[in-house]
């Protein structure tokens, strides 16, 4: 506990206009230590990190670097002091190559010309330390999310960071990539770097952090060593109430419930092959699998969002053809995208426009009925507990949790009978997760048929009545009832399930 403090905040306040988002934060990053910063969305974690890295000035309070008070005039001064912040939304120039990104703004030169050979060699070295074998000459736009994350970390490595601040680094990574990241984090810690990271996955906090600082409503509610806390303790401190009942109870489904959707032979070229399943009214079907296993693509193909062929497609027992989203919506089938920021919501528009966009025809054939829209928004804000200061706030300024709730409200505007939700709780806090789970279960109880695609194992297990596991574009297994265990899902997802054929429905 006597490791020297590298970077600290003392009674830091931050206000945006009249709104105080941080009220007296104390936080302390120590050399050779991993500190986890956790809290619900909107608790003030992002602002805290931005102040630490010099992206934003504090309204009141002190920033201490090696015990001395500093004031960062710009983020360059923060970087010059060895503080690197990795954003949740990547800060990479998409058109430039990996190497160009890593050395962006600090290009190595030999005379007046760029020393490309050395930069490329160094880039290879950083990437190999991360066990990431992408070519330094690949444009970043062609990388997957997880590779982009690795490039961001390589960038931090190249800057010899004394303090590394990571905003939800694992949100877009697969299990094995998380392991590689953690290995690097341990290596950096051993080398004396002070590391701060945020995560909504408390298991990760337990696994990697030494200490944890918990925030709620712009204040630090507890800082303690990780060993002294259980995951339940953390969750309770974050939310301020008991959240042990995260998942609503699963009701007993009648075995002969009527089938809402039957799919056979669904193929999305290059992504998913011969997918078949049936879904009953009142049922929540989980679709598990690794990132890249074709889950999202299969569901998008089913809903007419990308080219796909299907042998049999029946809704309520009637054969149907779906070629576009409009066809899908006409059949009461609606898909909620996993990517709320790039595919789900218009961030530079208000809530009303976003809410009604998908089901605009319901608000008037040619001219839009503004009153009906306003009424729908008031209803959605109430039903989905969307917390926005006022009605005309831009959606991009809402917290992730509120954006997700708005997205859910948006897809519900078309009153689907079959709802497919993809990563319904990615990157949102545990309190909002609980609300979304409760909502989905209530929908199922009202007779809707629901598909949940998720990478979060606990979510699949806690929410699903039945689980399909996908692997390399195919269904690797189907699990039901007591068979839905983490072990069984992982086995199927990794291709080591022994009794796949027996269980496959």
């Amino acid at each position, binding site marked *: 506990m006597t490791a020297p403090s590298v970077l600290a905040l003392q009674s830091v306040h931050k206000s945006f206009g009249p709104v105080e988002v941080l009220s007296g934060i104390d936080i302390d990053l120590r050399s050779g230590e991993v500190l986890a910063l956790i809290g619900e969305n909107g608790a003030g974690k992002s602002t805290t990190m931005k102040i630490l890295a010099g992206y934003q000035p504090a309204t009141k309070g002190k920033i201490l670097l090696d015990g001395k008070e500093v004031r960062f005039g710009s983020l360059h001064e923060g970087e010059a002091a060895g503080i690197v912040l990795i954003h949740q939304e990547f800060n990479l120039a998409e058109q430039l190559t990996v190497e160009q990104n890593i050395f962006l703004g600090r290009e190595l030169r030999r005379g007046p010309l760029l020393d490309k050979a050395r930069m490329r060699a160094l880039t290879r070295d950083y990437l190999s330390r991360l066990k990431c074998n992408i070519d330094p000459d690949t444009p970043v736009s062609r990388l997957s999310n997880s590779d982009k994350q690795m490039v961001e970390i390589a960038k931090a490595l190249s800057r010899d960071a004394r303090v590394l601040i990571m905003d939800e680094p694992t949100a877009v990574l697969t299990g094995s990539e998380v392991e590689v990241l953690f290995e690097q984090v341990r290596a950096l810690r051993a080398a004396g770097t002070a590391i701060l990271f945020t995560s909504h996955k408390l298991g990760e906090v337990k696994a990697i952090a030494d200490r944890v600082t918990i925030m709620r409503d712009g204040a630090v509610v507890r800082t303690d060593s990780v060993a002294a806390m259980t995951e339940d303790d953390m969750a309770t401190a974050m939310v301020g109430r008991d959240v042990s009942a995260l998942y609503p109870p699963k009701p007993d489904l009648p075995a002969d419930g009527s089938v809402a959707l039957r799919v056979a032979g669904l193929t999305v070229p290059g992504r998913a092959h011969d997918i078949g399943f049936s879904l009953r009214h009142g049922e929540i079907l989980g679709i598990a699998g690794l990132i890249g296993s074709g889950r999202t693509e299969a569901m998008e193909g089913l809903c007419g969002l990308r080219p796909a062929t299907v042998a049999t497609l029946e809704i309520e027992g009637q054969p149907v053809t779906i070629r576009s989203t409009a066809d899908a919506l006409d059949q009461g089938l609606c898909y909620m995208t996993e990517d709320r920021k790039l595919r789900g919501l218009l961030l*530079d528009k208000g809530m009303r426009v976003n809410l009604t966009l998908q089901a605009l025809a319901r608000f008037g*054939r040619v001219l839009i009925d503004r009153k009906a829209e306003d009424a729908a928004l008031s209803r959605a804000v109430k039903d989905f507990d969307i917390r926005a200061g006022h009605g005309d706030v831009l959606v991009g300024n809402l917290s992730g949790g509120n954006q997700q709730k708005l997205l859910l409200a*948006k897809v519900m505007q078309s009153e689907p009978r079959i709802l497919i939700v993809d990563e319904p709780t990615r990157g949102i806090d545990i309190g909002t997760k609980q609300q979304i789970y409760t909502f989905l279960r209530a929908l199922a109880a009202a007779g809707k048929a629901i598909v949940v695609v998720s990478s979060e194992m606990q979510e699949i297990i806690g929410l699903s009545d039945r689980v399909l596991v996908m692997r390399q574009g195919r269904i690797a297994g189907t699990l039901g009832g007591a068979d839905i265990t983490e072990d069984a899902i992982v086995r199927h997802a990794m291709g080591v399930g022994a009794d796949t054929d027996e269980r496959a429905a």
Partner: protein
Amino acid sequence: MATETANPPRARRSAIPSMSVLGPILALVILIVIGAALNGNFLSAGNINNVLSRSAFIGIIAVGMTFVITAGGLDLSVGSMAAFIAGLMILVMNAALPSLGVGVPIILLGMLVALIAGIVAGMLNGFLITTLGIEAFIVTLGTMGIYRSLVTWLANGGTLSLDFDLRTFYRPVYFDGVLGIAWPIIVFAVVVILGEVLMSKARFGRHCAATGSNEHVAHYSNVNVNRTRMLTYIMLGLLVGVATIMYVPRLGSASASTGVLWELEAIAAVIIGGTVLKGGFGRVWGTVIGVLILSLIDNILNLTDLVSPYLNGAIQGVIIVLAVILQREAKAKG
């Protein structure tokens, strides 16, 4: 707290509109005041009629351009397209003269040709941009060159002139009107009203804004992105046809220099009016103000000898840049 947040924003909004709304209107008012102060003739019915009639061509096109830009597109070909359609119209009408004679039918034929040519030209731009997925800037840069060259070729490097008798018969479409208001102004007004309703109150306008704001979100939200874009180009082509119908009777001719730089004037008017160049937000009434600002500057410089009319382009350039800066400031604050 609850009542406080519920009411004041609305009250504030109606009391003082934001700079992005107020800016163009203020600029227009200031121009009118300056014009009136410098020249007594400025506010005469004759001058107003003249300014508005001349604005009508660019204005009608700019309304269409507002939709194209709002949906995230751009069309550089409209000036050349207008010249080509004018040439085509004149050729067809001259050719039909022996069989149809001077009369209403031949005028209607000319109008039909203009409208169809506009729609087809718009479809061509739209097809290349949406179906083939080529950058709008490149496609319309190409078609701009093609139409300009075609009209030069049709006129054999010179001028295509409407038959004298036909011209005399057709003239009233530009020079006459109802209750002292010239036809181009009436048509412009109708286009603006329809455009404003379509943009701000109809599904199509919402779809355009969604497409321009983020086409992936639009696609995932059951908006047919390609069809929306295609329709904006077709609509713009149709409006170029309408503008040409109003333009031909004014001079009765078309040449390689017809409609030069109209595309940039139309785009400038759209931007001054507060539509975002990269798409996602557009307003037709703003475009109208943009058109009026540009033509008033021209008119004031011609009526007074304070500043040389040769500096017209420079002043317009300053206004365009200023408009965008003011709107950015307003956005940053809001």
